[in-house]
């Protein structure tokens, strides 16, 4: 399971970095989104990977080994909300830049 998760994070990061370095604003924003997915998975993985483990202690407190670490999940939730909001803001700025310059190049003008 670890190798699958690690590969997923790696692929998302690679694609994200490549897209962020592209010259079109749309590619940049998709790249940043992919990067934020990779980071989300990365934070999630720091709590350890367990299948079927509950994050919240219920009825009786059993062995702690059977429960998932709830802290990374709380962190992930915060990180998702924040990166969602800032990405939405970036989208608005990109649309404004497109409207003002007429091109979707990140520098506001095409090279050629």
């Amino acid at each position, binding site marked *: 399971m670890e190798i699958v998760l690690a590969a997923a994070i790696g692929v998302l990061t690679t694609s994200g970095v490549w897209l962020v370095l592209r010259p079109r604003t749309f590619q940049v924003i998709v790249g940043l989104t992919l990067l934020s997915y990779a980071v989300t998975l990365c934070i999630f993985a*720091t709590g350890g990977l367990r299948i079927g483990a509950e994050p919240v202690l219920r009825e009786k407190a059993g062995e702690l080994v059977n429960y998932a670490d709830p802290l990374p999940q709380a962190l992930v939730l915060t990180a998702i909300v924040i990166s969602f909001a800032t990405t939405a803001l970036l989208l608005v*700025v990109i649309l404004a830049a497109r409207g003002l310059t007429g091109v979707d190049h990140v520098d506001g003008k095409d090279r050629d």
Partner: protein
Amino acid sequence: MAAHLPVLPILLPLLIGALLLLTGGRRRRLEAALAVGGCIVLLVAAVALARAVDAGDGSLAITNRLGNWPSAVAIVLVADRLAALMVLLASTLGLLNTAFALSRWSRLGPYYNALSQFLLMGLNGAFLTGDLFNLFVFFEILLAASYGLLLHGSGERRVSVGLHYIALNLAASLLFLIGVSAIFGVTGTLNMAMLAERIPALPDGTRGLLHAGAAVLAIAFLTKAAAWPLGFWLPRAYEAAVPPAAAMFAIMTKVGVYAILRLGFLLFGADAGASAGFGRGWVFTAGVVTLAVGVVGILAARDLGRLAGYSLLISVGTLLGMIVFADAAAIAGGLFYLVVSTLGVAAFFLLSGLIGPDGGDTFTDPPLLEAYDPEEEAGLFTEEDERPVVISAPVGILSAGFLICTLLIAGIPPLPGFLAKVAMLAPLLAAPEGPLPGAATLLAVLVIGSSLLSLIALARAGIQIWWAEPNRIPPTIRLGEAAPLALLMLALLVLTVTAQAPLGFMQRTAAELSEPGRYIEAVLSGDAGS
């Protein structure tokens, strides 16, 4: 009461900002009263906090665990001397900028005052938090507010610079999260005091991951501090922002410096076992190169906004070079320089907005909303008015301000810029143990050289503005703009005359920083009682 004082600098701007959103930008008087009133109360709270923290020499930092949860899961706010100092600096700057912006700049678009309140909230939160993840949250709050402030006034140039700024900061925030998650994965906590406690005892197998996480985190901080090679965005972005926003941003780079200073001493201080002193050489190198790049930039800058941006880079470079010395006297000098250079560069940004665009830059002044027509103004002086050599009041005020800023930034006596540089250089010349061999000498030479070269650059700009261009549009200044500037200058003057008291506070701050045990005890001792 004193135990809850650290919450106030965060909640107060949040409340005022929310109220300002409700006014909807239509009731100007109410808005102005709210914004300035809120900033004054915030300043009073910051002074009270600094006094409470500084009471008694051996006192511990004030810790507040919101909701009284145990510190492993609580949102912990810690106010020690360093945090109180930074909050005080942010509040001072906030008050002056808010008052300055009221007369002209805040009306260029909606919600300027609300955004600057949220920026203050994020700044104060970042300084006061005792937890890495909340540091991230407050960073995001201040960044989100700064995006709005940078775009304030709109226009093609601001939007295109804003696009770069937001994309870059989003990427840096993701690096921040990767660093935080790596550190959490290794240590199982994000509370800074608990981290400091656990790091010396880490098994050697996981220490590499901890260092990797810390290094990624430091890259995020260095991006925000605009250190070379991560700081190319700064001069363009700050030049494009409206002057009061740029002046407020002068402290944002210091948040990155603050984070490195705090974590460097707490997590990788002398007590950190095998991790002691991790990364110091790298931060020093980044600082020294930033300083050199800033000097080259300030010599090449053709307009005032750039000049101010590069002088900000010089101050960041100097600070990054200083804070890696594990020497209390050097750190105290560095802190004094931090305060003085932040205020000086902020004043310079404000002035650059009033003096107007310089040289052949195509960037035009933001449109003034008052009836002010340069051509009409120029028409008042016909050939009959023989133009007697009279220096008008605005020119007098602005050129005096420019002179003071030059002295501050270059570090010429008698202003505190000079005192700060002496306070930094004196311990450096005693050659304390640095991160790299010869580091102290190198930094001292560079700091002195940067003083001379920025003096040359600023004097050249001054000659061009005040003496060489007879056909300039006469600058205007309003009382609402002159008063905050005068207050800022007055504050700096007071800082010169009574330098002993602030310098003493910095020395106690540096001493407290060198003993991370006191911070750890202050945070963790509260748990025993609950």
